């Protein structure tokens, strides 16, 4: 007896969905095992989590707040993926965005909100965009592996933020905590619906809309799609791949930088450590699960936000560390990746006589 894979005769248009559902169910089952292994009753825990997330006002608010940066980092990674480029550096670009915004807010806090907020947004675009240009230039000019460079720059950006938090930006009134002074009112994004939901959410949705339009309806968007489908064909048709790579990385970094702006000006109103709970890394999963589709980004950001909020509740209720998020993300990415083959193939048993 031997297991082997057999190509399906015809693939139905929606055959991805049952496969994906089974993958997610498997992931949930594995998360049960995780909870059980640390002595938490998974049934009880998920009941609490479900109630807190979906049946309380706070749960919904928290979900929408957590979705906001994930939409942006997910879009950033998905944009690079359109050209089969890996931007693993959204985490660092996020941090450089927060850095640039904080610099602006601390130095120009006296400006009124109508000039300050756009200024901060531009700063975050510059901060994240320039940081994204580093792997972009190295890739397009010299062909250096963008996965490694963009990833390593995350550690540099985190150290750069720490350098300021533990140095010249530390709030004298903070009892030596590594946090900056709070932003002035004019540097804060407005909240809506009497809740924690802030303007960053609409910024994120707007960015996704614009990106979708640019990719589908403009010349440069077509070039990107062509280069993603067939690099050689694109090159022979006269498209400058190097230039396109650089543009993609700059824009991708800028979008991740905007996520930083939205967090620092919309949620925390100051720069502090761990302002990103791994939003940049999560963007990779958001983009992968979404298959770079705009609607998919909404859905997968929602899923990831549920995981973040669940982890917070598990932390409060059971004292589990927040890094359980990474574990869940790893499990989901594994099960989804492993399931994809079953869209086109089926598992068969062959009897060897």
């Amino acid at each position, binding site marked *: 007896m031997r297991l082997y894979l057999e190509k399906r005769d015809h693939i139905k248009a929606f055959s991805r969905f049952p496969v994906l559902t089974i993958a997610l169910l498997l992931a949930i089952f594995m998360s049960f095992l*995780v909870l059980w292994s640390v002595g938490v009753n998974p049934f009880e825990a998920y009941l609490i989590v479900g109630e807190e997330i979906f049946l309380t006002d706070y749960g919904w608010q928290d979900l929408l707040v957590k979705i906001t940066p994930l939409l942006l980092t997910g879009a950033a990674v998905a944009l690079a993926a359109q050209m089969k480029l890996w931007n693993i550096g959204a985490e660092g670009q996020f941090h450089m965005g927060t850095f640039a915004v904080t610099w602006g807010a601390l130095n120009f806090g006296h400006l009124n909100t109508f000039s300050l907020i756009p200024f901060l947004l531009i700063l975050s675009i510059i901060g994240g965009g320039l940081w994204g240009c580093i792997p972009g230039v190295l890739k397009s000019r010299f062909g250096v592996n963008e996965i490694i460079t963009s990833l390593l*720059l995350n550690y540099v950006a985190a*150290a750069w933020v720490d350098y300021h938090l533990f140095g010249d930006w530390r709030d004298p009134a903070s009892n030596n905590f590594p946090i900056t002074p709070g932003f002035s009112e004019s540097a804060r994004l407005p909240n809506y619906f009497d809740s924690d939901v802030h303007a960053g959410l609409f910024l994120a949705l707007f960015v996704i809309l614009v990106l979708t339009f640019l990719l589908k309806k403009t010349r440069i968007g077509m070039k990107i799609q062509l280069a993603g489908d067939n690099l050689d064909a694109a090159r022979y048709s006269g498209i400058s791949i190097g230039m396109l790579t650089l543009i993609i990385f700059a824009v991708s970094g800028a979008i991740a930088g905007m996520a930083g702006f939205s967090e620092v000006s919309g949620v925390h109103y100051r720069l502090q450590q761990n302002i990103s709970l791994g939003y940049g890394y999560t963007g990779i999963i958001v983009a992968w699960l979404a298959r770079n589709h705009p609607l998919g980004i909404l859905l997968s950001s929602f899923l990831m936000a549920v995981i973040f909020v669940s982890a917070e509740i598990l932390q409060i209720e059971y004292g*589990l560390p927040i*890094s359980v998020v*990474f574990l869940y*993300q*790893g499990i989901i990415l594994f099960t989804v990746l492993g*399931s994809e083959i079953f869209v086109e193939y089926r598992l068969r048993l062959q009897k060897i006589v």
Partner: protein
Amino acid sequence: MEFLVQLLIAAVEMGTPLLLATLGGVISERAGVINLGMEGLMLVGALTAFVVMLHTGSPILAVALAAIAGGLVTMLHGLVCLMLRANQIASGLALTLFGTGLSGLFGSSLVGKTFNPIEDIPIPFLHKIPLIGEAFFNQDILVYFSYFCAVLTWWVLFRTRLGLNIRSMGEAPEVCDSLGLSVLAYRFWSLVVGGGLIGIGGAYFSIAMNPYWVDFITAGRGWIAVALVIFALWHPLKAMAGAYLFGLALALELRLQTLGLNVSPYILKMMPYFLTILVLTVVTIKNARRDIKVMPAALGQVFFRGLKN
């Protein structure tokens, strides 16, 4: 002089986990499988070794179980990217997330616990060599083990039939397949053995370098090892040179801090990452100029019988 000796000792210590992980990466990439899960695997190895050491006090057992844990967790990557033909890069990232989460979850209760690190064993006569003797021959057993691994990996990969087969899997899997060699089996076990070595590299952090548990104890060294595999041109002995060069950079960062140099530790912390990017760029440019094609030709490609991708 004393400063230099201390610096070299620290360089070898810092380089050892990098060397072990790089060797693991070299083995699996030679077989054609990219393993971007190194950072996560090192964390799993570090955690396993720490727990075993805390409860049994036996370094041998700690290292052995770290290797087994590294190998077992790597099997997930193998299952997904080899058996189920998923994208190796995405699957490797999943492995890093998985390992990071695992070590964070089970390590949270260990923060602050400690034990005595494994002892240095001077090798007779050799450790008396001026300058380098102390650095290379008055270290703990894992350092010596890493020398052994480097030479053994080189010997197996370049001097045995097994190694030839492994390397062929990274160059021309279709040919291997038509010769009746199982591509999946060779790739899977190369990946798993590599994962075991990466796990031991992680163990070095928690039982030899600083025997108290902190979250994310490896601090990105797994990613430096990913770059080192390229820097070493997929060669085990060049991996030694690369690992100690980076060890030296990391040691210098540490030493400069203790010298009371007036530079923020956070700025110094960036240096190894910048250095990695710089070196990676130089190596890439040099290889392109000389038209060197050392990278395994089928690296990262899905192998599917009768299917060209």
